[in-house]
């Protein structure tokens, strides 16, 4: 199972990096340097960003689900992604930040704000309904605030401009932008992965974990802050992309045999694969304008989400 995941990841990454081959061949026929330029300046940042964002969503989703003890906690359903988008919009169109790293910080601050609000509204040990309703309320509010911020933004093109990335896009991101998302996300993800053992032990109940020296409240704060950094940085560069943070952890736990913490690493791989496939799909659609990646993940994610809800209901009624 693990070997298959790694194989699929490598395959998807190679496909994403090299396809379509036609344009590379044409370019190298004109000038071999041009093909290299396409690969290094265009394809590489895009592939890295796609892998990094997908992996970050997988890890953060798994971590949030583990600490909330709920398979429906995720960056999108908790409102963190919407919060990050709001933060980045405010930073970019109102505060006038242009530095990718500054925008990433705004995204992280937005995500942190919404997650903090979620914990304040619903508490951490919450049942699914409360969690979903609180997350929905926060997402809606953040979405409305984002639209308002764009509508009233000093730049008249803000709305049109923002559509390109708000729903998720990896088109024409520079190496600098990729770095602004990937460096904070990688650091945060590394710190999250260090907590996988602790999150596994929390599965035994917070009291047992506490008797082993793991304080769940403190762990929750760390998870929330680290997830906010990772998700916020990625959203600020490539927009809010849903469902991967919800679905990848399910596959991750399948691979980790139910262990919620050890599921983070496989969830990272699965998240990266899903994001690579979604972006490949976007690129291969024969349209003259790009479809947002978030649309693709939502199209395929919604049925999976429904399936998740049905299996959860079955388990509750069983």
């Amino acid at each position, binding site marked *: 199972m693990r070997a298959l995941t790694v194989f699929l990841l490598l395959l998807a990454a190679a496909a994403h990096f090299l396809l379509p081959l036609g344009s590379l061949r044409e370019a190298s026929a004109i000038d071999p340097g041009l093909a290299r330029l396409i690969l290094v300046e265009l394809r590489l940042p895009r592939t890295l960003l796609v892998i990094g964002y997908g992996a970050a969503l997988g890890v953060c989703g798994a971590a949030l689900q583990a600490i909330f*003890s*709920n398979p429906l906690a995720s960056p999108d359903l908790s409102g963190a992604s919407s919060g990050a988008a709001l933060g980045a919009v405010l930073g970019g169109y109102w505060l006038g930040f242009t530095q990718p790293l500054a925008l990433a910080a705004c995204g992280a601050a937005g995500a942190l704000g919404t997650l903090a609000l979620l914990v304040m509204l619903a508490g951490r040990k919450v049942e699914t309904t409360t969690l979903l309703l609180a997350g929905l309320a926060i997402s809606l509010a953040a979405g409305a605030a984002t639209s308002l911020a764009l509508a009233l933004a000093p730049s008249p093109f803000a709305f049109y401009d923002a559509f390109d990335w708000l729903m998720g896009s990896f088109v024409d991101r520079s190496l600098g932008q990729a770095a602004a998302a990937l460096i904070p996300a990688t650091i945060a993800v590394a710190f999250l992965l260090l907590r996988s*053992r602790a999150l*596994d*032990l929390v*599965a*035994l*109940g917070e*009291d*047992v974990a*506490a*008797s*082993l*020296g*793991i304080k769940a409240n403190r762990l929750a704060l760390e998870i929330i802050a680290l997830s906010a950094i990772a998700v916020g940085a990625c959203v600020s560069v490539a927009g809010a992309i849903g469902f991967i943070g919800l679905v990848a952890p399910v596959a991750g*736990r399948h691979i980790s*045999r*139910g*262990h*919620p913490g050890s599921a983070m690493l496989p969830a990272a791989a699965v998240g990266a694969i899903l994001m690579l496939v979604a972006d490949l799909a976007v690129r291969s659609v024969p349209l003259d304008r790009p479809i947002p990646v978030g649309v693709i993940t939502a199209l395929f994610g919604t049925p999976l989400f429904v399936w998740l809800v049905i299996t959860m209901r079955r*388990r509750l009624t069983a």
Partner: protein
Amino acid sequence: MTSLIAKGVALEHRLHPTNLEVEAGQLVALVGPNGGGKTSLLRSMARVERAGGSVEIDGEQLDGAGEARLRSLLAFLPASREIAWPIAVRDVIGLGLERRDDTRIAELLELFELTDLGTRPIDRLSTGERERVLMARALAARPKVLLLDEPLSNLDPYWILRFLDIFRSAAALGQAVLVALHDLTLLPRFDRALLIADGRVQMDETPADLTASERFGEIFRIREDPNGGWMFRPRVDPRSSP
């Protein structure tokens, strides 16, 4: 040899500062009325909550000790049998060990007659079966002290007797075992019994002396039934009579 020394452990509103020493190899019963403080005493000794005082096991302070040390010093079995994720039985037991050890897991599966259920997710077990799994988890790392909150509450008679036997073997290996329980008929199987009420250890005796004392009956509001077993004392408050 003294194994566990608790000094002034306390929880606000629930447990007055309490001192307790338990010998290695001792099997100690904690009894008391509901809400008297049995769970609070176990939780504060396991350092589950920010409890006052200090606890040391074999001369090592629990506060500030790392996961690996704590695992070898004590195991805490809470009264809740809920596990949030559908983890397989053998993996739940594995979480009780620092490193995966299939021989030890197989040994525990065998001891608790769970071998056939090894791969089944724990949420698909009955409460009693789950209790056996969680008890196996607690025993896995062979800790010096076992703090068990009502481990017998959902078990059938066979498993109550088997658990008591397992506790006795643990004690024989030098482990100190503290067990909160309600079934007073099981008290004679313990070396020592603590009666906890109103957030204090009210009595600390041998089981025979404890049950024979007048105070025991007063606190529990029961008395020995001439026909065997126990009967409750009628409430003194006249308003409560029908």
